């Protein structure tokens, strides 16, 4: 019974927890958007949209490897934390000093969760392609592209919004501090 009733701010930053510059994840999403667009194009002209290809043909597909790299980078952000992600490090080292201070800081949890959603979608595309489902790779890359585009262009975090729907479906959030 305690958490939602603790004095007016159940979601305030924990002691010692540092906020991040919200422009960092948006910058990373912009790079991801471009890479996913390239994946979609390579996928559409390659063997991943053709039925009856061999595993060797699909493994020689640059779209497969590009999506694999993007998925590994999502995993990095999801499991290592958004602050440790290479795009975030590049942003802090090179871009942020030229922009001036951010007007507000953001909790790193939402973008980290969004990376996990990206990782799951990317992994689904890779697995579908490996077992030879035509268009599996392209459709997964297209969904991830839309999410990354919304994040970078509109600052709208689709992955973050999905959290509540997953919680209501009973997939995440059970067995927590109050439930």
């Amino acid at each position, binding site marked *: 019974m305690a958490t939602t*009733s603790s004095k007016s701010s159940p979601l305030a930053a924990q002691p010692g927890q540092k906020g991040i510059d*919200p422009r960092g994840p948006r910058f990373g999403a912009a790079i991801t958007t471009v890479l996913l667009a390239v994946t*979609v194009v390579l996928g*559409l002209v390659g063997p991943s949209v053709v039925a009856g290809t061999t595993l060797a043909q699909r493994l020689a597909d640059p779209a497969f490897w590009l999506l694999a790299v993007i998925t590994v980078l999502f995993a990095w952000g999801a499991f290592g934390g958004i602050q440790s992600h290479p795009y975030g490090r590049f942003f802090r080292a090179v871009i942020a000093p030229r922009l001036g201070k951010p007007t507000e800081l953001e909790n790193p949890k939402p973008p980290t969760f969004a990376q996990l959603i990206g990782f799951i979608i990317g992994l689904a595309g890779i697995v579908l392609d490996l077992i030879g489902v035509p268009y599996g790779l392209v459709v997964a890359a297209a969904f991830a592209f839309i999410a990354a585009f919304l994040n970078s262009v509109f600052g*709208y975090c689709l992955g*973050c919004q999905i959290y*509540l729907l997953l919680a209501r479906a009973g997939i995440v*959030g059970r067995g927590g501090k*109050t*439930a």
Partner: protein
Amino acid sequence: MNPWIVVGILAGLVIVATAIGLVARSRAGRVQEVRGLRFVKRVELDTDLPFGSMATFVQFSTEMCSRCPGTKALLVRTAESRPGVRYIEVDLTHRPDIASSFNVLQTPTTLVLDNSGAIAARIGGAPRPEAVRTALDIALRRDHGHYVI
């Protein structure tokens, strides 16, 4: 595949993503007036903070919500500038049951309760300051505390 079809699909994706972004932006923070008397009890929100004597903002958030802290700052500022208006934040991270009973599909979602604890207005998404004032005015106009039922 024909390169023009590939270009067309890519352009289509950009158009779809832009359309989703524009619709989401125009819908976010829109005020819905709530008619009827849906009284909110504090036990439903799992809170022991008191409601305001004039109106109450109830903000539903999760830990994974990137726009919730900004909305909270705006609502707290507004509540502090008006006498009798209070702010309560409800963390849905581990409470999908509360999300279901108030039919919350996105965070932040804000309910504005009138002086009797009935829902007067609802805002889905991060509101602008004008929307918060509009919703608060709807709640302050209602006066259910004086109804004799």
